[in-house]
């Protein structure tokens, strides 16, 4: 029992960051029917910004808002530069464009900065822990989970209570009908990218406090996990993306715990095998998007 609780406690932090990215992926999919593989590059952008700022001795309390701001602007720029002109193109074209952006981003960081890891200092509390009974809680997991819960509460409020949220939900269901209601296509899509960027910025800040370094390809792994989390939850369903992200984070820890230490490298492979089994049982994901609350 203690082991189960320990694994749950350890998996919630990573799962929360996957969920934050996954909600952004789902939000963008909802309004554009695009799985944006360039979304993970917001983490890389934030990482190099954090490296640059920490090198100049800015504190994390300045770095975090800067990383979040950069992610919002970066996400809006991706929409404006890459996707606005091809909006309405077939999904394959949109998907290829997002892959192209991801590859381009890796190349830019490699060529103009460095292909090597650029380390920076992490805050001390991110690796501290405390115990309740025989279960040990890392502060980072607690903070990541708390911040994610707060972020999802704000997201739910925005989507349910504001005109922007209504427009996003309506556009996700029927874009042309939303336009007939006076919803401006540019505004709602740009807004969805900005909001997805905000959530990615929050997730990036949490990840960077643990990673303590910037690398050109560092956005690829969390993005892959986020896309898988969004698909597990049922693409287009925000509660599904949250559940998928948390489930993925916790499953990772359980699989790693079950494997012998020298086979730890197989964790991702086994997690993907578990996900493949899930899709055999429930091809539509955990949530049915026809009936679950969509974007």
């Amino acid at each position, binding site marked *: 029992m203690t082991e189960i609780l320990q694994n749950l406690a350890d998996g919630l932090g990573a799962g929360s960051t996957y969920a934050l990215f996954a909600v952004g992926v789902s939000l963008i999919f909802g309004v554009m029917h695009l799985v944006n593989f360039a979304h993970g590059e917001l983490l890389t952008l934030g990482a190099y910004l954090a490296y640059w700022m920490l090198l100049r001795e800015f504190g994390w309390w300045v770095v975090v808002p800067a990383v979040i701001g950069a992610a919002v602007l970066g996400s809006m720029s991706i929409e404006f530069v890459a996707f606005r002109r091809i909006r309405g193109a077939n999904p394959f074209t949109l998907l290829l464009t997002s892959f192209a952006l991801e590859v381009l981003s890796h190349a830019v960081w490699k060529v103009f900065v460095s292909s090597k890891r650029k380390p920076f200092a992490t805050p001390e509390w991110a690796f501290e822990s405390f115990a309740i009974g025989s279960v040990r809680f890392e502060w980072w997991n607690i903070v990541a989970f708390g911040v994610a819960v707060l972020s999802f509460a704000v997201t739910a409020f925005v989507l349910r209570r504001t*005109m922007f949220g209504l427009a996003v*939900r309506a556009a996700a269901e029927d874009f042309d009908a939303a336009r007939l209601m006076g919803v401006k296509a540019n505004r709602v899509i740009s807004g969805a990218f900005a909001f997805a960027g905000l959530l990615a910025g929050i997730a990036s800040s949490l990840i960077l406090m643990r990673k303590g370094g910037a690398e050109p390809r560092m956005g690829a792994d969390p993005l892959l996990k986020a896309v898988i989390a969004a698909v597990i939850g049922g693409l287009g369903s925000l509660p599904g993306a949250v559940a998928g992200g948390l489930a993925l984070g916790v499953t990772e820890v359980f699989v790693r715990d079950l494997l012998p230490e020298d086979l730890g490298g197989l964790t991702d492979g086994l997690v993907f095998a578990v996900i493949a089994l899930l899709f055999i049982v429930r091809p539509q994901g955990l949530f049915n998007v026809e009936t679950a609350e969509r974007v």
Partner: protein
Amino acid sequence: MLEVDRLTTRYGEITALHGADLRVDEGEMVALVGPNGAGKTTLLTTVAGLVRPASGSVRFCSANITGHDPARLLRAGIALVPERRRIFKDLTVGENLRLAGTTVPSSHRRVRIHELCERFPILGERVDVAAGYLSGGEAQQLAVARALMCDPKLLLLDEPCLGLAPAMVDVVFELLVELRDQGRTILVVEQQAHRVIGVADRSYVLRTGRIVAAGGKEFADRSDLFASYVGGAA
């Protein structure tokens, strides 16, 4: 009020409208009828700004509005009730109405929703219910109420009776007449040609993207209505 002049709309290689001309005067109800695939929906969606025309012009209250986006046209006073209603099923009735008030000042939005819920009591009763749970007739009332949120000068309706039970069809026709009698200008596309021509002030027949006949109420009784549908002399 509305003048459509030699309007041509294409979808890739396919030309759906071939230089269609049409006029709607203030306060009148004009019907647009024709067989399936004639281009009726294309004409309405082009006027409403969802589709950009290849050539021709659309003028509204003397201003050229050709190719304007729907949000701008809504502000100018043109609202479309689309084919198959296209209400947002995951949103509640109240949220559908709120969203339709995007162009209405926020201070006036709540008042307007209250007015429409009084006009359509079933919507008032189900304001917190997801629109996906409404019956066909209720959904059609919501679709019309949504279009009325911004108090449009010109109301475009695309097959408002499609898929409705006969009793609900009567309700929709009564609503059309009521709206016209209140001074609302209406352009309606409807498959029930004889019935809609009977209540409209004037009617046009569209076939293969061209206006092939036009007339007043007497048009419903003319033997050439059928001929104009299938391609004989108009």
